[in-house]
């Protein structure tokens, strides 16, 4: 391509468009780079800072290895609690997400006076991070796994409802029309026209959220909402990095196992 000389593209309209497109592209890239650099400066993210901090990281890693294997019996119970929090929270959140997803989808709820407020509520729920939810519920219900479960319930509800309603909006309207023609009522149309199409997606999002929740549940303890996070916090506070690494290692094993299981289920569904 020749460099764009101003005025040289005047011969025919397509040339002008070509040059305009190129300027647009260059301007877009410049804008992205400028924004990135400005952000980095503002948060003091400089290569210098990274260099000075790296040796610290090395010594930390050194203290983490080897993990404290004798810690396993102590952490076993809280680890199980973490998984239980994730299971109960995700399940209840997922169940709650179904009716809300139906009310949010324009093709299920053409009445915008219902669907738009539902979407606003959903967005509000999704704006609040899980740890903030956990802190709120700890304040309300006291320290313990119940607060953590509630936090994950709302967190999962937000994700699952959002993703599910978007898949509901993308389903093939044909079967719905066919069910309407057959004389089915609204619930029957949903059961026979929507559910078979949207269910695999729902399950997939549910499992994905469960994976995310296992990770989230392991830090809930930082704000006193139960699970392994309390011990993680304590280990870090006592500079027992070998214990912290043990916790991370176990969490990793569980996350991998769940990843593997849910990937298999999802693959067989879709």
């Amino acid at each position: 391509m020749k460099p764009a000389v101003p005025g040289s593209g005047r011969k025919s309209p397509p040339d002008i468009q070509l040059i305009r497109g190129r300027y647009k592209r260059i301007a877009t890239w410049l804008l992205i780079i400028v924004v990135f650099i400005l952000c980095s400066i503002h948060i003091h993210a400089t290569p210098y800072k990274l260099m000075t901090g790296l040796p610290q990281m090395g010594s930390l890693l050194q203290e983490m290895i080897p993990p404290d294997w004798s810690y396993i019996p102590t952490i076993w119970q809280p680890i199980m609690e973490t998984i239980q929090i994730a299971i109960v929270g995700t399940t209840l959140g997922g169940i709650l997400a179904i009716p809300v997803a139906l009310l949010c989808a324009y093709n299920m709820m053409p009445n915008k006076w219902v669907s738009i407020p539902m979407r606003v509520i959903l967005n509000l729920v999704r704006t609040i991070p899980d740890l903030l939810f956990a802190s709120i519920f700890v304040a309300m219900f006291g320290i313990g796994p119940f607060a953590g479960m509630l936090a994950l319930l709302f967190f999962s509800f937000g994700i699952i409802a959002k993703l599910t309603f978007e898949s509901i909006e993308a389903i093939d309207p044909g079967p719905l029309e066919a069910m309407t023609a057959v004389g089915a009522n609204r619930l029957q149309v949903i059961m026979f026209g929507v559910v078979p199409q949207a269910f695999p997606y729902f399950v997939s999002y549910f499992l994905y959220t469960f994976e995310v929740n296992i990770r989230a549940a392991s830090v809930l303890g930082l704000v006193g909402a139960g699970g392994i996070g309390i011990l993680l916090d304590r280990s870090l506070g006592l500079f027992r990095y070998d214990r912290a690494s043990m916790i991370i290692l176990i969490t990793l094993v569980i996350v991998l196992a769940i990843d593997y299981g849910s990937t298999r289920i999802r693959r067989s569904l879709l």
Partner: protein
Amino acid sequence: MIQFHNVSKTYPNGSIGLRHINLTIEEGELVVIVGSSGAGKSTLLRSINRLHDITEGDIQVGGKSITHAKDKELRRIRRDIGMIFQSFNLIKRATVLNNVLSGRVAYHSTFRTMLGMFPREDIELSLHALERVNIREKAYIRADQLSGGQQQRVSIARALAQEAKIILADEPVASLDPLTTRQVMDDLKRINQEMRITTIINLHFIDLAREYATRIIGLRAGEIVFDGSPEQATDEAFADIYGRSIRHDEMLGGEV
């Protein structure tokens, strides 16, 4: 019997779907509706089971006004009207049998159908319906494993399981090849004759219309411009319906 009394349909954007339609379709007829695209064929068909609402006039199905029917009554009338679509509109992930059974939902309580508890007779009826269209052996296969022609037969079986008295078919063969087109049309014709099910089909192949119909209705710009027997539907008559001479792609061709 289906009766249109001065039926008009204007879409919200102002375009006209139907214009002062007066029409009576007797029991057992096989009516083929022809017309160029946008002439209102689909609107006419879908107004019969009120998938489309009309803006003026009244439509009576079996002596009952579907135009003025309330929820429950509307579903009751729809229950007796089977519908066949160009794109089959099956639940692709469900088995063939479950697709046919879905034609039975309006006969049972919401609760019962939600649990998928169809009575034994319904299953018998559905299998029998599949037998009528010669695909009984596919009953337990997922619908998306079937060819287009087979899927269309499943949707015919769904209408049969519904024990419909009227079948509406909106371009039922438009996405099929010539050979399966004939098989599906033969099925529809046979069902029409053997079971005396009033059948109304939208078609854009005029030779098929002449071959299968007992009565041809021509639509142009939302108005009925032709209503007569296949013999009366000459090339000139079609040219008049379309407002131009017949094109090659409006003939299916092959053995007539």
